[in-house]
């Protein structure tokens, strides 16, 4: 059954797509975004651990730590990042590694990068980073590259293989054009084409970048101008998973062989598209903050077409 069928099905049952999207966005508990079944099921951390048990490869995604942010939406972004790392350390089966989908810091200050490193390193996992626009704000645009740019190309894109999966980290936060969205640029697209060429179509591909590669809400700049070109190169691969951050909320879309997913921030939530005058930091009740911050774990089982993505809030 295709995923279009599922959407159709849901509508027949009176659950509009929008409603489902809202549930996906604001579910207060960990959610497993299924794989071949297509229907989202809520899972707790224990289930997440069980799922990890059977998986060939488990890795984590954290995003948008915004170290240095101290505004009302969360006066202590370092504190909630620490909580996220504690959550990761509590997972019974140690994940293989972690990816960070950008906005490590809020203002690209050296001290912010240092503080982020100090906290994230407590997970004792390899971390594969891609930059967010907040990581390129220092005058010489060198702090990110000095720390995380080794072995990468251009502003910091690269690929690697792990557990039979091919991972591609892309940068879509530089050379943004007036009136436009995120941007990969011709050079990076050319590199991507070459990187994927000749690879077996049965190789599962995970692409991660800061700004969503799919168009979530262009009025707020939530999308990537030339993202469709990148996706063209991914056509024909049996399993493609696109992991992003930037929008500080969970969203998922499945299109054919491609699963798009955005992770929560560990720092502050942002409003659902169009529900506020701007995408700026959203102040929620203190008691609710940790239910809208969190991490994601991704399980890959050999033979499964789709990777299982489990979003876990810091609390709630």
């Amino acid at each position, binding site marked *: 059954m295709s995923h279009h069928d599922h959407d159709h099905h849901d509508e027949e049952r009176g659950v509009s797509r929008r409603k489902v999207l809202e549930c996906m966005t604001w579910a207060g508990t960990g959610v497993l975004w299924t794989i071949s079944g297509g229907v989202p099921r809520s899972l707790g951390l224990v289930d997440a651990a069980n799922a990890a048990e059977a998986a060939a490869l488990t890795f984590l995604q954290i995003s948008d730590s915004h170290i240095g942010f101290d*505004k009302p939406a969360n006066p202590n972004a370092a504190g909630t990042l620490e909580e996220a790392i504690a959550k990761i350390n509590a997972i019974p089966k140690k994940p293989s590694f972690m990816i960070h989908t950008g906005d490590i810091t809020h203002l690209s200050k050296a001290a912010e990068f240092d503080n982020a490193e100090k906290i994230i390193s407590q997970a004792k996992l390899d971390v594969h980073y891609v930059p967010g626009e*907040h990581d390129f704000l220092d005058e010489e645009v060198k702090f990110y590259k000095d720390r995380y740019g080794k072995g990468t190309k251009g502003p910091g894109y690269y690929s690697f293989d792990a557990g039979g999966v091919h991972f591609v980290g892309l940068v879509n936060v530089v050379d*943004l*054009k*007036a009136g436009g*969205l995120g941007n990969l640029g011709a050079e990076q697209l050319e590199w991507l084409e070459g990187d994927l060429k000749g690879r077996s179509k049965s190789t599962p591909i995970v692409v991660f970048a800061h700004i969503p590669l799919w168009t979530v809400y262009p009025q*707020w700049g939530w999308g990537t101008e030339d993202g469709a070109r990148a996706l063209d190169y991914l056509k024909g691969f049996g399993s493609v998973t696109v992991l992003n951050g930037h929008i500080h909320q969970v969203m998922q879309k499945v299109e054919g062989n491609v699963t798009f997913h955005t992770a929560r921030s560990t720092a502050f939530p942002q409003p659902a598209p169009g529900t506020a005058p*701007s995408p*700026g930091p959203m102040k929620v009740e203190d008691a609710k903050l940790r239910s809208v911050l969190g991490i994601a774990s991704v399980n890959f089982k050999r033979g499964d077409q789709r990777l299982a993505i489990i979003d876990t809030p810091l609390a709630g």
Partner: protein
Amino acid sequence: MTFAALRSLGLAVAATILLGTVSARAEEHKVTIDNFTFAPAQLTVKIGDTVTWTNHDDIPHTVVSAGKYRSKTMDTDGTFSFTFTSAGDYKYFCSLHPHMTGMIKVEAQTTGMIQPDQGTNKVE
């Protein structure tokens, strides 16, 4: 009074008038950033005028006019000022959130108060 002295006085007067004219006319303008929006989105100023942008958001922004001017990152309550010295349409945007755009239209000073034929600022 000698002719030379008169002439110097004339020069001084002329200089005073010219300087006075320019400084009286250079105006300060404000553009604010609230909710990821420049307000006013379009502003018309005269050559010599200064525009100051102020960021009221909890997220940093920049003001970039390709090839013309580029602010540093403005954090909350951060400001950036630019004095326009030539006429034209200066489209600008936030390089972090490129959907934020604005324009400063810079017009030439009108010549109404400077009238060479009346001799007030004629220098020989």
